[in-house]
């Protein structure tokens, strides 16, 4: 059975701490966690702002953000590729086929997702807080801060959704990273490569490692954030 040999393969890769596996796993984490930090720094305040502030283009901004949640990664990859190519507008930076290019692509992919979920969660919180914060004569920045802090657990969910989308993503990072061995190869592109070589067991093994890692990261974040342990919710 192919599945079984995949599990065996994953087991051996893990117990022997295969050097290549460790390297691409760490690179996967580096790329996705960096993208997650940057994307959260953009998307969470954006979501809060959309909840707090009423402005003319608000509705359309929200609609566009929601629509962009479904951005096909390969299209994002292609756009970033064309922009970063030596013959493109940002070619002089020489960023194409580097981990930085992969981070940029992933940021673009997950910002709309995180911002949309954050906005959804904070909107409800805002309806609770609205009268209080208005009566206290707070500034807009203070309101955003209050929402971000008190809604932090819901925002964690938003960020984790972004992490989930980024860590399993292959279309964009394949295009902008180029899957270069020891340079831009990550778990998902390695899986695509091994599938192409017909090495299904190894590909499946890497897949199980990816799943295990995603679970580990989620658990770690929950433990650090002390969610599901009483407290507010």
């Amino acid at each position: 059975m192919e599945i079984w040999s995949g599990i065996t393969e994953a087991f051996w890769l893990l117990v022997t701490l295969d050097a290549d596996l460790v390297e691409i796993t760490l690179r996967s984490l580096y790329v996705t966690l960096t993208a997650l930090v940057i994307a959260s720094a953009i998307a969470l305040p954006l979501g809060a702002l959309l909840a707090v502030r009423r402005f003319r283009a608000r509705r359309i901004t929200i609609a566009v953000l929601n629509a962009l949640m479904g951005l096909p990664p390969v299209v994002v990859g292609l756009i970033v590729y064309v922009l970063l190519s030596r013959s493109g507008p940002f070619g002089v930076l020489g960023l194409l086929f580097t981990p930085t290019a992969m981070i940029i692509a992933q940021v673009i992919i997950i910002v709309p997702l995180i911002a949309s979920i954050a906005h959804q969660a904070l909107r409800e919180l805002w309806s609770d807080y609205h009268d209080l914060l208005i009566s206290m004569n707070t500034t807009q920045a203070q309101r955003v801060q209050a929402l971000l802090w008190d809604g932090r657990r819901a925002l964690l969910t938003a960020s984790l959704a972004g992490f989930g989308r980024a860590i399993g993503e292959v279309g964009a990072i394949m295009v902008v990273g180029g899957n270069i061995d020891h340079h831009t190869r990550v778990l998902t592109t390695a899986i695509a490569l091994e599938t192409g070589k017909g090495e299904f067991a190894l590909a499946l093994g890497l897949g199980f490692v990816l799943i295990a890692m995603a679970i580990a990261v989620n658990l770690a974040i929950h433990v650090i954030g002390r969610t599901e342990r009483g407290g507010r919710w």
Partner: protein
Amino acid sequence: MKRTIFAALSAALLATGAIADEMKLAVTTSFHNSGLSDILLPRIKEDTGIEVQLLVVGTGQAIKLGEAGDVDAILVHSRKAEDGFLAGGFGTHRREIMYNDFVFIGPSTDAAHVAEAESAANALARIMTAQAPFVSRGDDSGTHKKELSLWAAAEIAPEGAWYKAVGAGMGAALNTAAGLDAYIMADRASWLNFGNKGNLALLYAGDPILFNQYAYLPVNPDKHEHVETELAAKLEAWLVSDTAKALINDYKINGETLFVFNAK
């Protein structure tokens, strides 16, 4: 918050800063799938100090990467596309390095009797006559272009439900052929290294028209001044050296020679 974003961005940029003596080389999937690159790259690093970063793509995309200046040199196998690349002034010159050959793969039951074919054209005619499923790369790669030229030489227009253009790399196309029990043309190296052979078997090979010449083309610095011309020249000198010759000619899978060194 702004400062945090800036710090994160600059950290990401610094982490990818260039280390000396790295160059990017676009190579074809067939070259990489053969496993030869795993033998050559460590030796290149050892002998010349160059860390060659491989971009494994089809010939069509390799040429595009060279034209855009996103790589420093390309190693491909499609004469027509290479000549166009040079005519456009994108490469400085073309250096032949080695060749391997294409083979016809199909279900071991061989309903179309390809194993008894007298020539490559005859093999294709047999597949067409039998309307046996045939998987084509369909991705504008060197192998795909070769396959199309063979159909043209056999004076057959490959059309119909039996002809399946999958638009994928060699390995993915072989996976499809294994799943469909279909015929397919592959380079010998990819076939021997392929892990999911299923019911497939090598049915026909040996027609001289199936030889597949690999050539090395450095990207022209007149078009893109940032390309690593010196490193590209150093790599070329190594690729035509006796060390490379011995490594390439001695590379075997299951006791079969894959590549023949023929650089002059």
